[in-house]
């Protein structure tokens, strides 16, 4: 066992973690621990843009962005936090540009912006260009730029270290325990502040846009130490995943004029969202797609639809919608322009579908995409551990792992990258500030005890279970019963399955008993995280007897503000039981009303 000491430890090296590290390292001795090389982080796969009301292309205001996000959240987002994020967005995007981020440009040389789902001109209700983009690899450019700036500023990195336990002493943060993947050696990182920036858990579901690494590690390690999880029932299904594979096709495709088409050749979103159609928010579109497929309107009756961005289709519907360019001329696209604006999408479609999107429509289906819930925090990234928002000293969370809550029941596209940079920055600042005035908590007598127990159990497991059998069963059942549409009965059966799988999980034998890059052992540990999270998601979802945002129940199809305008908090008790309590939503000036697109 090796020991290290830092003022601030950041876990995870995606957008939030790197932003936090960049800010914390200005004043505090900071290190980043990541199970992947930083540039492998999932932020890199984000495509379409980061939302900020720069107004570079047309009139826009951060207050409009705020209202759109509140409405997008189905009124479950905390309005003070959303106001903060949308106000900070403008400066945060300029700051990224000053770090060298190669945004695409307007004719005047400013940061280019494109329309995205749910982002509107609040006066006309029409889509507004708010997503600041770098072609269709905005996340890649954010990740690269922030990593580069961290190198420039000599931030300490522990790459390929898997954090496996959070140390809590006297109700405060004392550090973390990590396994060095190359050697399987345990390391204790003694710290005054710990920032969790480990991302989401989309690998719980079968069809997913999420990386193999997206196993909810930050949530798992903190819930095992008594931290409650907020709004875990809210998980976003993105409308356009590549058929069967789930690989993301950015909403930017629809921003540039692409449309969804069913098996009858209809642009069916006209029926579900008459005003903004294919640019409605994601929950609305994914549910519409599900209903179309269920009604037999899939392509050839199968369970997929077409995303059509062929120039003739784009131009036809742009003319029907009366869409105009900024100079007032009719909006048109050529094949070359589509390829120039969406090069990676063209590449994905060619590689994985054998389809050239300029000549053929792309087969798509909704794909598990984004964790709205997570570790409860306030707008400074401080983790809050009860209904009274009591701050846990020294613990911070930012990015997808956190629930501020700025996304509520449904996140708007482009708000995830925004969340990373705004709350990454503020959690870094707060964590560093806290570490200046605080002492180290003493380490426990045997700091690696709990981690050791978990890995001993994995090493010594007896039985014939297969990791892939258990993970596939979990994913299928969660997709089926705790996916886009849910029923009480379905969720009950899913819960029983998850508990059964947790038993079977104990009987996966470990074939690799070595120490060097024991990826089998790590994969089993990660599956344990996913199973625990799947159970927590299901219990949280089962209790919420209403439909709101991404949580759609066939047996409770209406939003119920009288009873459910509140956040779920779920605790895992030492005996494994899950306790649910609730806290109010913060409302500043937007009273809940019916949500129509």
């Amino acid at each position, binding site marked *: 066992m090796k020991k290290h000491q830092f003022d601030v430890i950041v876990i995870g090296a995606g957008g939030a973690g790197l932003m936090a590290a960049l800010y914390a390292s200005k004043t505090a001795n900071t290190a980043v621990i990541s199970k*992947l090389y930083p540039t492998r982080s*999932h932020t890199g796969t984000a495509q379409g843009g980061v939302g900020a009301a720069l107004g570079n292309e047309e009139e826009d205001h951060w207050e409009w962005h705020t209202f759109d996000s509140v409405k997008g959240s189905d009124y479950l987002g905390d309005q003070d936090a959303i106001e903060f994020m949308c106000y900070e967005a403008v400066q945060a995007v*300029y700051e990224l540009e000053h770090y060298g981020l190669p945004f695409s440009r307007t004719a005047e*040389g400013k940061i280019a912006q494109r329309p995205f789902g749910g982002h509107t001109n609040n006066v006309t209700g029409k889509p507004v260009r708010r997503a600041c983009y770098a072609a269709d*690899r905005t996340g890649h450019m954010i990740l690269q730029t922030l990593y*580069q700036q961290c190198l*420039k500023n000599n931030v300490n990195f522990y790459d390929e270290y898997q954090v496996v336990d959070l140390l809590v002493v006297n109700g405060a943060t004392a550090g973390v325990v990590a396994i060095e993947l190359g050697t399987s050696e345990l390391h204790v990182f003694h710290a005054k502040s710990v920032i969790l920036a480990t991302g989401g858990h989309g690998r719980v579901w079968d069809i997913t846009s999420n990386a193999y690494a997206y196993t909810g590690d930050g949530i798992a390690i903190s819930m095992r130490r008594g931290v409650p999880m907020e709004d875990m029932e809210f998980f976003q299904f993105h409308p356009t995943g590549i058929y069967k594979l789930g690989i993301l096709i950015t909403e930017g495709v629809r921003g540039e004029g692409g449309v969804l088409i069913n098996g009858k050749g209809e642009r069916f979103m006209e029926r579900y969202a008459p005003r903004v159609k294919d640019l409605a928010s994601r929950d609305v579109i994914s549910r519409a797609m599900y209903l179309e497929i269920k009604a037999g309107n899939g392509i050839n009756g199968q369970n997929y639809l077409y995303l059509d961005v062929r120039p003739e289709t784009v131009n036809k519907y742009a003319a029907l919608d009366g869409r105009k360019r900024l100079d007032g001329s009719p909006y048109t696209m050529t094949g070359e322009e589509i390829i120039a604006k969406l090069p990676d999408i063209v590449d994905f479609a060619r590689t994985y579908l054998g389809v050239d999107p300029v000549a053929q429509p792309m087969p798509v289906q909704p794909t598990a995409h984004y964790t709205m819930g997570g570790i409860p925090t306030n707008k400074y990234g401080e983790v809050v551990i009860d209904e009274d928002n009591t701050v846990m000293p020294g613990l911070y969370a930012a990015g997808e792992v956190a629930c501020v809550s700025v996304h509520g029941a449904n996140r708007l596209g482009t708000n995830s990258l925004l969340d990373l940079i705004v709350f990454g920055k503020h959690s870094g600042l707060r964590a560093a500030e806290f570490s200046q005035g605080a002492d180290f908590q003493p380490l426990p007598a045997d700091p690696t005890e709990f981690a050791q127990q978990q890995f001993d159990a994995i090493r010594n497991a007896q039985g014939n279970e297969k990791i892939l059998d258990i993970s596939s069963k979990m994913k299928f059942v969660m997709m089926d019963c705790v996916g886009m549409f849910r029923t009480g009965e379905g969720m009950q059966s899913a819960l029983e399955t998850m508990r059964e799988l947790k038993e079977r999980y104990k009987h996966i034998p470990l074939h690799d008993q070595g120490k060097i*890059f024991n990826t089998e052992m790590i994969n089993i540990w990660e599956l344990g995280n996913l199973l625990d999270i799947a159970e927590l998601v299901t219990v949280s979802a089962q209790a919420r007897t209403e439909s709101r945002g991404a949580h759609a129940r066939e047996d409770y199809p209406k939003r119920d503000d009288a009873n459910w305008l509140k956040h779920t908090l779920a605790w895992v008790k030492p005996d494994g039981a899950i306790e649910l309590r609730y806290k109010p939503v913060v409302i500043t000036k937007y009273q809940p009303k019916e949500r129509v697109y």
Partner: protein
Amino acid sequence: MEVKVKVYRFNPEIDKKPHYETYKLEAEPTERILDMLEYIKGYYDGTLSFRRSCAHGICGSDAMRINGRNYLACKALLKDLHTNKITVEPILGLRVIKDLIVDMEQFFAHYRSVKPYFINDEPPPPQERLQSVEERERFDDTTKCILCACCTASCPIFWASDQYVGPQAIVAAHRFIFDSRDRAAAERLRILNDQFGVYRCHTIFNCTECCPREIEITQAIGEVKAAIITGRVA
């Protein structure tokens, strides 16, 4: 169809030297090589070790040598290989740690050596720095790099000496040298004018051929050479 996957195996805790194992499995033509490796690990041999994450060609974790050419295993589809006999080996030129996992440290050290970050100490304007569409286009190609190492590990010059900075580091430098907002082009050109710098490249084109991001790497290297000779960035 039935596929035979022959995989390079080496576990330094057990093996004195590397060997190959062959696994037979059923696979669809549209399956990724990564899917097959996952299947082998899940059902045949849990000890098989490799890196992977996003599984769609963006994170850059799973660079491997597949039938003699560098690919990302998640971007190589069975049908694209035109055979049902697949050989998977670690990328060359970097020390093998275990099976398909190589030591990336030397690769990242070369990356860091070219100052791969934006440098401009002039106080920024309150809004964005302006850059024309053309100026932005000038370095677009090299912004796509994902640091997977397919290029550097395909370069015979790098195989001969890992002191050579390699194509990836030159691509990383190119991205900043040709950015109109950056102010440290001269410094990077001086670094690459070293004996292990850009002149080691003999335009073999292996890097360009295997780049999963389709970056015109050899061209970028040529542009950096030209900038050193002329002292001008254009």
